[in-house]
């Protein structure tokens, strides 16, 4: 008994050490961002900044439209999330609560488009957005992220497990499908909706390849593209680069510290059948 208890303590200690090592790169980014230039390149490296400074942060915020990038990211990620939920909810309802011929076959077709990542489509999307005169606008970035199969997959998985008696009862009371969806299914599916919101927001917030192609003017950049522009300008001036990266990570980190449980639960749900 004591041996196994000791074993379990030891395991936790090892895993904890590993976890510290795992987050060390993030800590290193934050400390580099507030070190003055000579200290960044000092040997041996200092783990705790000796003379912390906000010069790099000021440089990023004053020379670059950093806050505008953050705003752009919020708009793009927000629009992607809201529209994804709006189109996925009714479709998932039809694929789970209604019975009709060909339902599962059509669902499988939608689902298999998981194999068409955005990256594969960037050239045709560029042509398309050019024709629609949408290049370098928000919609160019968020429209292609909306029809992702994960939305209907995740919600359908959840809807299927809601007992059928609930809508039968509502149907007896004369409710149509829209009202059943609104009054019965939606209130019961908050966890799945939360999962979808978290997943889509993260996905859109981090999207890189297509955004880089669709957005050309610095005023329209999202954070990931803006950081790439910073790299182009500062090359190996790591103080400024890490300050920019840290500023971009800060909101994510705050949100994660507050909502750790729900974010992990939500993301787990997207990966779990």
């Amino acid at each position, binding site marked *: 008994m004591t041996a196994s208890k000791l074993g379990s303590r030891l*395991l*936790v200690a090892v*895993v*904890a050490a*590993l976890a510290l090592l*795992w987050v060390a*790169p*993030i800590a*290193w*980014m934050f400390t580099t961002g507030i070190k003055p230039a000579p200290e*960044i*390149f000092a*040997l*041996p*490296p200092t783990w705790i900044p000796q003379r912390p400074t906000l010069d790099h942060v000021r440089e990023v915020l004053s020379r670059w439209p950093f806050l505008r990038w953050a705003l752009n990211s919020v708009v793009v990620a927000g629009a992607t999330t809201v529209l994804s939920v*709006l*189109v*996925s909810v*009714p*479709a998932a*309802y039809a694929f789970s609560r209604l019975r*009709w011929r060909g339902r599962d076959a059509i669902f499988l077709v939608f689902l298999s488009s*998981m*194999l*068409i990542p955005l*990256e*594969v*489509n*960037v*050239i*045709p*999307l560029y042509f*398309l957005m050019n024709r629609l005169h949408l290049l370098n606008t928000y919609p160019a970035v968020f*429209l292609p992220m*909306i*029809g992702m199969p994960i939305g*209907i997959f995740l919600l359908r*998985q959840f809807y299927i497990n809601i007992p059928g008696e609930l809508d039968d009862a509502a149907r007896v009371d004369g409710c149509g499908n829209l009202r059943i969806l609104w009054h019965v299914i939606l209130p019961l599916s908050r966890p799945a909706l939360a999962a979808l919101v978290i997943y889509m927001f*993260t996905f859109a917030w*981090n999207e*890189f*390849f297509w955004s880089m*192609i669709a957005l050309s003017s610095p005023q329209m950049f999202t*954070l*990931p*593209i803006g*950081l*790439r522009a910073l*790299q182009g300008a500062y090359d190996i001036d790591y103080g400024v680069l890490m300050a*920019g*990266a840290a500023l*971009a*990570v800060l909101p994510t980190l705050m949100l*994660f510290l507050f909502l750790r*449980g729900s974010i*992990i639960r939500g993301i*787990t749900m997207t*990966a*779990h*059948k």
Partner: protein
Amino acid sequence: MKRRYGRTVEIALFILPFAAFWILFRLGPVLYGFFISLYRWDPLGDAKFIGARNYLNLARDPRFWNALVNTLEFAAIAIPLIVGIGLVLALFIFAGRKRRVTTWLEAGFFFPYLLTVSVVGLIWRWLLDPDFGVVLITLRDMGISPPVFLNEPRWAIPAIALATAWWLAGYRMLLFRAALEDIPDEFYEAARIDGASGPRIFFSIVVPLLRPAILFALVLTTISGFIVFGQVLIMTAGGPGRASEVLAMYLYRFGFEYLEMGQAAAVGMVLFLIILGLTMVSFRWLGYESSL
């Protein structure tokens, strides 16, 4: 009869909003991309039908083969690394699930997944900087003389794969941890009563029951492995030379630097076919268990 018709319309209306986005921005572009890949596009807007010429040009371009080999190398290193680390972390977290601190450890392993690829690339470029990177300095202090990862052709791709594993393994960890929690406790107890050893339990009970999760993780990771772009762009820009130029980067450069849109679209089709083929192979290999 009339009611049936009304019902069909209703179902169609429920699906239509999603289907519209899906057709316009997901399926449609694949077909459009194939069409684009059959033409030579003049930057001024003229297009000339050239059949399979873009594909032949790819086949004849050593730079394309270099990018393909680099992508395969990246995938061959990154996919097992990401899935393997994810599985090991999940086993750790699962083993310690009764302790409160474990949820914090799990959060630590997961957090990098929430970072955008530019941040991941910038952090690792700095960590692996040949002169002042803390990883190289630490290794040198330990008496090891490490390669200057990002500046050495042989080491650039493995180093990028390592950074990618750090970034993505946390999501696979959550997936495997959830699958482990699904295995009823009785299975372990029964095995233990029968005197099965730890490794035996792992390979005879855990691995078979994790098959659907492993399949899903493999498909997911294969896709992200073959479309790798952002971390390469930031960490090495395809260098040194073209030692880490991957297919997505080749696509980007031909499309938006050399304005060979047709040839770039052809690369997109090749990428799509690779992903399709590999997914079918993994389904065959691991057996498709319908989750419908």
